């Protein structure tokens, strides 16, 4: 891990204290190229400095992290986003992933895990927290929703997880690191990563009504 190039990281969070904390955690391990505390400034600076990874708080004034994500990816698709939030509510998580973030971690993540996640996103892979894995399993396969009404989607491929993907997600939800998942299933880490990326793609592109419905129902039920 030490010989990997140090990714250029940009912080977006409206709390000075949190930014300082993250900067301290990341010092030496990645290059922090800038930070912003609201939407407008974030969009401008990100497009100017073109970092590899943007650490994006979901709840920031001026439209939320989603606004930054959408504005930046409209102009430049090489910037990757890792959402970082104190909220682990399904609505927030699903919304920001659907908007194009490559991963979602909660703020109580340890420093090392965060660095690992940043590297992973910088290399184009997806980062799934345990909660996110659980949400995906719940939304795609869970029994909480009667899904008889949502079968008329255009691309059934996107609406289902393969058995292998389910296994990988289930292990992640159980608290296994990628490496442990690989050992458990007897596959390489690269394969685990590609499974997770495939799930991320489905999560972002699936037309399934359920995803958004499911997320908002979790709040309303």
């Amino acid at each position, binding site marked *: 891990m030490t010989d990997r190039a140090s990714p250029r990281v940009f912080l977006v969070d409206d709390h000075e204290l949190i930014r300082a904390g993250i900067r301290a955690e990341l010092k030496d391990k990645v290059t922090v190229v800038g930070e912003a505390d609201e939407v407008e400034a974030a969009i401008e600076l990100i497009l100017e400095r073109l970092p590899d990874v943007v650490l994006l708080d979901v709840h920031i004034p001026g439209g939320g992290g989603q606004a930054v994500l959408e504005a930046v990816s*409209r102009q430049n698709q090489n910037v990757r986003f890792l959402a970082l939030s104190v909220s682990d509510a399904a609505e927030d998580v699903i919304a920001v992933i*659907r908007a194009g973030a490559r991963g979602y971690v909660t703020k109580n993540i340890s420093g090392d895990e965060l660095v690992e996640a940043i590297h992973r996103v910088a290399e184009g892979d997806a980062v799934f927290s345990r909660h996110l894995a659980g949400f995906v399993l719940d939304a795609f396969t869970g*029994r*909480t929703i009667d899904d008889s009404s949502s079968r008329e989607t255009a691309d059934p491929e996107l609406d289902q997880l393969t058995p292998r993907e389910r296994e990988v997600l289930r292990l992640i939800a159980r608290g296994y690191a990628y490496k442990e998942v690989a050992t458990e299933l007897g596959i390489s880490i690269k394969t685990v990563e590609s499974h997770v990326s495939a799930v991320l793609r489905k999560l972002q592109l699936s037309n399934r*009504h359920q995803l958004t*419905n499911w997320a908002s129902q979790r*709040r309303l039920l």
Partner: protein
Amino acid sequence: MSRRWRTWQALDITQISHPSRHRRTELQSPKAPRRGHGRPERPFRRESEDAILGGVCGGIARRLGVPTRLIRFLAAICVLFGGLGLVIYTALWICILRRDETESIASRIVSRKRETQLLLVCGTGVIALLIAADAVGLAQGSNGLSWVLGRFSWAVSLSCVGLFGVWRGASLDEKLHLQELLNSAPIIGADKLRGWKQTVARAAAGVALVVVGFATVSKGGVGRYGAVHTLLGALVLMFGFFVLFAPWWLRTVRELTSERRDRVRAEERADMAAHLHDSVLQTLSLIQRSSDNPAEVARLARIQERDLRSWLFDPVAFARRSGAPEQLTEQIDQIVRDVEESYSVPVESVVVGDVPLDDAVSALAAAGKEAIVNAAKWSGASVISSYVEVEDDRISMFVRDRGCGFDPASVPADRHGISKSIVERMERFGGASSIRSSPDSGTEVTLTLPWQPRAA
């Protein structure tokens, strides 16, 4: 009529709840222009930014993917056909949702009884007046003025009623837009209040209109079209008074609107303050009192974090918390809370699916609790992961820690924790349990329970 409004509303709610759908199309082709020329866009919404009046033209343009100016031009032509354009415009203004809003003006009015009555009374009055005018042949003359009146009176009066409805039913945001519109209107606008020249100009215009109006009214009543003159004079008179008093009226309205908004905000803040006082402030004072005991401080902070988190992000679960658990998720929630509070170890829980509690499911939860408690007591791990999944034919629970691990075979026979509380309990309900443990990767306890979804 109201049924149609409702379906409209229902339709829009379903679309609002999937905002990601059209957002995604924008993401996929970032170079596509956002509005105006280009591809048609669903759903049909009134524009909030590209708007002069209600944003109807902007909305149509975006829906069809043509320039807004073209639609505005066509609309203006439409107005010439007996004012048809006016009526259509007002109707759309009332019935179509404004972008990013969840309720149309129509549904807002229908849902408030007083507004509905007010509008019905106005509408009926105006229609009665028009019919009466028709009956006395007021607007059927061949003279130019009454020809124009006859052509447009229906359309204009109906749209006036409609505009009144718009004003009563518009959202706060749209009201602000309308106020700005009025404020920036020539002569009557409040923005022009600044500077004595404008004040004088307005006063002069107002007085002139009032005088002309009076003159027309008092002189009216002679000749064949006397009634028309009187009516016209009255209108001019009213407009004169409006010009004179508009800024004062506008200011009053604006103050009322912003006052109401402030009141709503103040109530929200009071609610929040009450909750924060009961929870966070209490905990902070407890923490100060036990500041020499780090374990206790961490415990209090964690309980408070959990509480605040569920209050902020999962209000339903928060409200439900008081009663005894009826669903598996609630039961797991409670177990996690209990363990965290008693053992000061964070437990991260993920639950997929949910089932109502019965004896077997409760047994699974109890066995799971034993596993979590063991991990908290003996493993020394800094965090415990719990994962529960309800599948088609079974329920599984996994409790994992990255602690010191142990050898299940070396546990003395007189320790009943694992054998009685986990293994035997699961077997009694036809389930199974397994334990995997090693010094370097910690311990994982797996519990499975066969389960059939009951026919409803």
